[in-house]
């Protein structure tokens, strides 16, 4: 299978690898996928409470090169965006940017889900 240059670049130089403190009230953590399916993404965001701007994003991914690239790209894109803007990122944008083939579309879906899950987790911390 041939990978696009962008996938290879993200795979070789993944952006924003790491972890943020899960317990921090300003941090939202999304964990999606399952080991049995061959893909697990953990995406974390740190949100400014005043402006709702995502100031930091980190990820770790178990999965194929396209899954790693999709989540790496997702962290790049959410950084500097407001939570509302981040939620507007669609998997199809990721597919387009990384030129993912049809069999790898699920990687982009997972990355979109990871963003949503991280935002949901962050929102939960501020309910009530």
């Amino acid at each position: 299978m041939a990978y696009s240059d962008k996938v290879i670049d993200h795979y070789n130089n993944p952006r924003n690898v790491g972890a943020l403190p899960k317990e921090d009230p300003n941090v939202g953590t999304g964990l999606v996928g399952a080991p049995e399916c061959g893909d697990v993404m953990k995406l974390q965001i740190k949100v400014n409470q005043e402006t709702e701007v995502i100031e930091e994003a980190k990820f770790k991914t178990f999965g194929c090169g396209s899954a790693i690239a999709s989540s790496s790209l997702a962290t790049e894109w959410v950084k500097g965006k407001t939570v509302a803007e981040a939620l507007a990122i669609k998997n199809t944008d990721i597919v387009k940017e990384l030129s993912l083939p049809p069999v790898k579309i699920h990687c982009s879906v997972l990355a979109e889900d990871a963003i949503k899950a991280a935002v949901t987790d962050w929102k939960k911390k501020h309910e009530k």
Partner: protein
Amino acid sequence: MVKLPIYMDNHATTPLDPRVLEAMMPYLTNKFGNAASRNHQYGWEAEEAVEEARKQIAALIGADPREIVITSGATESDNLAVKGVAYMYREKGDHIITAVTEHKAILDTCKHLEKDGFRVTFLPVNNKGLVDLDDLKNAITDKTVLVSIMTANNEVGVIQDVKEIGRIARERGVLFHTDAVQAAGKVPFDVNAMNIDIASLSAHKMYGPKGVGALYVRRRNPRVLLTPIIDGGGHERGMRSGTLNVPGIVGFGKAAELARTDFAKESAEMFRLREKLRTTFERELDEIYINGDLEKRLPGNLNMSFAYVEGESLLMGINDIAVSSGSACTSASLEPSYVLKALGVGEDLAHTSIRFGVGRFNTEEEVDYVAQRVIETVRRLRELSPLYEMAKEGIDLKSVQWAAES
């Protein structure tokens, strides 16, 4: 410096040995005759070359040259063996026994026969990949006409107790076929010592050319008859019609001869290199698992799961090395390896498996390079793996409620 890329996928195919090419060359150029042409020099020399090759192939497995039927490759050999026996002995019985870890050429052929009214028992294997001989005994009925169990598995390299399987089958008057594609030339293989009635062979797995294989068909005690699956001019004693692939057969013969004469030295060397690879991994990495029995295994095979690192991403990181993975992402079906599944390897670990196939032309330098590249890449990807992080935090991954993708 080692020359890149490195080929270490010798279960998929093997490079053509230059000595084999040399033997083939005349038959690709001047000696182009049809071995079935009985009335001129061109035909005679082609026929002579084919008969010489037949002797060489027979000698590798302890057979008589007249017991070798040339085919286009192992898939055809497997089809001819299973369908040929099933249709020939249909009056006698309609039951076939095989195992779940067989090659698709056997499994799909058996499924085809099921649709045609035959009954097939797919024996399970234990977590080492071995068929239980009591299961086999219990599965045989008076309607059983064929037992087909491979000698060595193409993914995990596990070697079945073929001699004993053959003995059980013969005791019960059932024919025994074995797919010996991975085993012949790599481990001791003798059709008489091992009670084999029919055996599939392939040239390109033993440094010969692609597009040529053979089926060993026993001539006496018992005499095996097969219904042909290809009809035509009655070549190969009527069992397989079609003009013979003379250069391919000559190459196959030479490859078989080299495999036979270099056998002891070569398998010892493959074993040494394979063990070096394995022990280096085990010294340098934690949480790695060997798939399949380590003792009853092809000398060049290492199938290993590198927990928390997805197979395709690992292959991507070692892209100057040719190996293969049981990960779903690398297969056409998007399902992880059915062989690993049959061994009870969880899907999570199946996704992290890599098959290394050490062969005749691999050097120690290459093995060292491969080991280092794999170790570095596994370490790098584990730093990237949320599963490795969770495992290190002491979280039991089995207890996590995974939110599957929508």
